[in-house]
């Protein structure tokens, strides 16, 4: 009897649904993505490296990755704070605040972009306050970081919240009964439990920030070598019909994003395994 690659099941529709799924996936996702790599492969190594490693490109990566890192770090700190406050404390309007945390997901990036620029420009509500202090936000790398902080805000909050909610009071009660104060309990008992979720949220916010376009392109000012983010560099090259250049940089970005994706997957598996433990696995 032929070896089956799957068990024959009494449920119908396997062939149809899998077939449709694979076809759709191939046509919409895999083939176009393959096109990108094909195009990259059609360049010589020299061409590719020249495009990917040009000073302008390097400046763009520095900005995109740097700002994304700073923003993700800020979100890690404040996201933890927000998650803690939402889960642990009761206050008027808590439900509303909790729902509002998803706003950066729901709001189109262009809207976020023009709004943040308006606020942070020299004569904007916030810019007006910061300007005399010597802090320029709009059209600087700082502005990019601020925009990415907005975009990445929900990631850490929503990754840490479930972990906080699942924490059993008994663990803290045990620490208290052993004489630990609240800060010590937080530092030694709670924080290590939250750490994997925090790192995952950070990674998600970072990954999102690296590729972000709409909310950043208005506030960054787009000066090559200084405030030009990598995605914008790709668009600029496209507009100049430098398909090869655009493709090369896109391929570089893509490879890093894929690596991040796999890393995040591994992080999540690692995190949940640490918390659940071999014995608990149902």
């Amino acid at each position, binding site marked *: *009897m032929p070896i089956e690659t799957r*068990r*024959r099941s*009494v449920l119908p529709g396997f062939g149809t649904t899998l077939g449709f799924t694979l076809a759709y996936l191939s046509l919409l996702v895999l083939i176009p993505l393959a096109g990108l790599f094909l195009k990259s492969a059609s360049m010589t190594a020299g061409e590719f490296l020249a495009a990917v490693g040009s000073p302008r490109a390097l400046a763009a990566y520095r900005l995109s990755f740097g700002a994304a890192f700073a923003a993700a770090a800020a979100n890690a700190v404040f996201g933890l704070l927000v998650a803690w406050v939402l889960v642990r404390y009761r206050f008027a309007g808590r439900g509303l605040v909790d729902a509002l945390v998803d706003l950066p997901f729901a709001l189109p990036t262009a809207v976020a972009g023009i709004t943040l620029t308006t606020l942070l420009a020299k004569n904007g509500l916030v810019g007006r306050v910061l300007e005399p202090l010597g802090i320029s936000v709009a059209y600087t790398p700082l502005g990019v970081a601020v925009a990415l902080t907005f975009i990445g805000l929900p990631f850490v909050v929503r990754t840490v919240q479930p972990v906080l909610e699942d924490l059993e009071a008994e663990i803290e009660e045990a620490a208290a009964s052993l004489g630990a104060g609240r800060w010590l309990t937080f530092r030694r008992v709670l924080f290590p439990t939250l750490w994997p979720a925090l790192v995952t949220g950070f990674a998600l916010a970072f990954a999102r920030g690296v590729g972000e376009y709409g909310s950043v392109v208005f506030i960054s000012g787009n000066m090559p070598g200084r405030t030009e983010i990598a995605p914008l560099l790709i668009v600029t090259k496209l507009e100049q019909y430098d398909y090869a250049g655009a493709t090369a940089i896109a391929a570089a970005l893509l490879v890093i994003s894929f690596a991040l994706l796999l890393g995040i997957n591994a992080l999540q598996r690692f995190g949940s395994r640490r918390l659940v433990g071999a014995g608990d696995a149902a």
Partner: protein
Amino acid sequence: MTIEARGIAKSFGIFQALRGVNLEVKEGELVALLGPSGSGKTTLLRIVAGLEFPERGTVLFDGEDATQRSARDRRVGFVFQHYALFRHMSVFENVAFGLRVRPRRERPGESEIRERVSELLHLVQLGTMADRLPSQLSGGQRQRVALARALAVRPRVLLLDEPFGALDSRVRKELRRWLRSLHDELHITSVFVTHDQEEALELADRVVVMNHGAIEQVGTPEQVYHEPATRFVYEFMGDVNIFHERVDPAERSSIYVRPHLLEVHRGPAAPGDIRARVLRVHAAGPTVKVELQSERGELVQADISQERQRSLALGRDDEVHVRPTQARVFADDYSI
């Protein structure tokens, strides 16, 4: 309807669930597939149901080959361990489901469906629950709905997968009795899977004892309990004391004795008696359970009547003799 399974083999990856199993169920019988987890009993049941397909072997219903037919075409009623009730449908709709999905030609009219469903709900004593959702029912009630649902399509065979496994013990005992009386009333050929030997012995016309994907013994409850064919069956069907002896100089044997077939004596020893010291006496219960240690260091359990304990007045560290009134000898073979 009769069921016959011949040479059924099934593996899941490298795990062999069934190794060439033969089973026969006669018309109107209630048969138990009994065994520990991993013995293959549920797999066998699901293969009979058409929910799984064997790698080798055939399944015959009334002599007709049904092996390649899917569950849909076999007209079997299947009751799942966790009920598998349709969570968004009322009790009524759950029971009516099998009737509603019939092809248009065969589909009964609305009033006919209503009649049949009411009839069944009354049969399972849930007449007033027709509009409830499964989440509003207790475990025992849900299982009865599952049964009514399976019976609605007038199956030729009723298959139950550990039907009472998820219920607590009092409900389990009640439903056991109720299932037996239902079977006596309806006479549908039925097969149920259980790991509880008490349940199998109480309910079934015949018991099929399984272990590691093979059948160890098939027989009536009396046969399986009093005349176990193998060590495994003996040990699985109830408590057992095992004594190791050299009956033959070339061969070691194990002597199997049930606790209630061990007599305890204080007086002079008779041939075959085993000397032992009392460790503990548990007198709270229908019988008195005496834990002893034989002179060879083996742990022994003897069940004696409350009367006997009154006359013996056993206590800790008493030196006594233990006498098997009925024993089974299994030769040890080392070819494990």
